[in-house]
């Protein structure tokens, strides 16, 4: 067991380091230190997404992108969050949960929508069961477009958001 772990520890990650991610990350960290102290936490709310956007948000936390090292953290509860990351076109069934999650988030708080259907509903616009996006329910501070946006695009989006504050 130890030998197996050692092997991996010495070898490290086989994928190449992406220079762009590193420089984006440094800027992200600087912005977070200036505006949020040490870290910026978000709570993710899936309001009826197909799961691809959520998968890419998770990918941004994998060892390759590892946004935690830049000071971005995923909060388990909205009580600990600075912002909500919302995916999906807002199914009717999620409307109440979304509103309550927003109310449970302490101010100052922000809304970032991720993915094409979180703004305006995208492919699911005018369905009998969607609210046509989170922007129809809450005031959105930043939208990250894409179907789904890649982890890099999510990092760029977060940086744009932090710069706008």
């Amino acid at each position, binding site marked *: *067991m130890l030998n*197996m*772990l050692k*092997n*991996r520890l010495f070898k490290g*990650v*086989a*994928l190449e380091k992406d220079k762009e991610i590193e420089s984006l990350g440094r800027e992200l960290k600087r912005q977070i230190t200036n505006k949020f102290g040490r870290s910026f936490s978000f709570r*993710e*709310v*899936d*309001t*009826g*997404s*197909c*799961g*691809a*956007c*959520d*998968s*890419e*948000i*998770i*990918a941004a936390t*994998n*060892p*390759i992108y590892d946004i935690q090292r830049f000071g971005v953290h*995923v909060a*388990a*509860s*909205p009580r600990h969050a600075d912002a909500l990351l919302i995916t*999906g*076109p807002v*199914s*009717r*069934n*999620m*409307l*109440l*949960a979304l509103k309550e*999650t927003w109310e449970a988030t302490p101010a100052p708080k922000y809304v970032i929508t991720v993915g094409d*259907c979180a703004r305006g509903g995208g*492919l*699911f616009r005018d*369905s*009998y*069961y*969607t609210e046509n996006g989170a922007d129809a329910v809450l005031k959105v501070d930043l939208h990250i477009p894409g*179907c*789904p946006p*890649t982890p890099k695009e999510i990092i760029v989006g977060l940086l744009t958001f932090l710069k706008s504050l």
Partner: protein
Amino acid sequence: MKALNERKTIVTPREFREACLKKHQTLRSPVMMLFASDHRPRDGRFFIHCIFLDRDNGEWDVVETYAEDNAFDSLSKDVYSSILFEREIKELFGLEPKGGLDTRRLRLHDEVWPEGHYPLRKDFNLSSAASGARGKYAFTKVEGEGIFEVPVGPVHAGIIGPGHFRFSCAGEPVINLELRLGFTHRGVEKMFENARPEDKVALSECVAGDSAFAHGLAFCSAVEKISGIVAPERARYVRAACLELERMYNHVNDIGGIATDVGFGFPANLAAIIKESLQRINQKLTGSRFLKGINAIGGIGRDLELGPLPALLLPVLKDFNELKNILHSNVSFMDRVDTTGTLDKKTAEDLGIIGPAGRASGVDLDLRKISGGIYEKAGFNPAVDAVGDVLARLNVRIREFEESVRLIKYFADNVPEGKIRAEIEMTVGSAIGSAEGWRGPVLYFVETNGEGKLERVKIVDPSFRNWQALSFAILGNIIPDFPLCNKSFDLSYPGGDL
């Protein structure tokens, strides 16, 4: 995958139940699909379609009837796998399953959707359904001394889809788990209607994002079958390779999830690295990390070069072997997954559990085996286990991952040159399209009208039926093992909720 043929029996409403029971028994098939379609504008009636799988002959066996006085005979007392479908027909079409075991609403939550509005009827009017009476959902109550309930969700602690789980416990063991889903219901089936099929391929890829390719493939092959064409051979090879790539990145994600849920961080992160490598290969090959935009009606939208794939997958397989060895050689990990969350074969068969979850419990059903075609040429070997616990599901996934690497190599070595897309002319008709996605068979029933537009699209993602397995697998286990059991099934909220 080669499309399976269809055999249709049209019966009167009186004969419907008998006919279905007979098929169920002789074919040893669960209800694969059971749904309604609104034919009132043309024929003045609602049709009910019940579809079984004849695995010996590789055919779909369809029993069709019509609803009488907005009702049809329920199968649920004899065929357990029909319950969810009947609940669905009732809430979407307002047709009563006579003698049904459970007729509560499934996705249109009583709290937000008024009574008497059936969205899949052709004359449904959205504006009148905007407000109205509010009801409450009746959860199963477990009563007795010391029994307590733990409600969880819909918003969970991790980055994961929304669903509500209600545990009833006596001490530590769970004695009942009721799932209330539907939180990601978006009305997908209705969004297909009245559009040209080629305009809705992108929508089919957004039904369940992690199964984008399987959904796109099932939809396209249904439309192809209606117009009587078969995708060119080169397209079939490319599609099969993509289907396996999708299986690989999702299976490894799930294996990592199992490690996460026992708090074993190292292999979990290794799995995340493997998943990322695979998604980068997807990106390199197709331009999409989720293999979107490849499927097109008649074949594939643009040509892909499969040649470099086996070489790209070699280092991935090496990492995967390391992951497998770390998990299998760790005693505390094995102790957590062994005999946890067991789903026995009888329950799996009764509920119609399919895909890797079913195969881990001994339900030997894999559409890749049944459909033959290039999978048969490649000597495809399905992974089956008999134990039905978390470990069995983990091992089935591991073997499927390894088999996928082998299959992709075969496809890359044997893909012929030639056309990638067949010309297509839309006609009136209906057909069933299918693809063995990484969670199991993804099924699409597609019906077109005289204008070449979509009249009715019924989608069954394996998650829809497999969610039920979770409520049985968890019985007698403790709540801390729930995330582990849940992850071992790795089901899709949006795929089940539509």
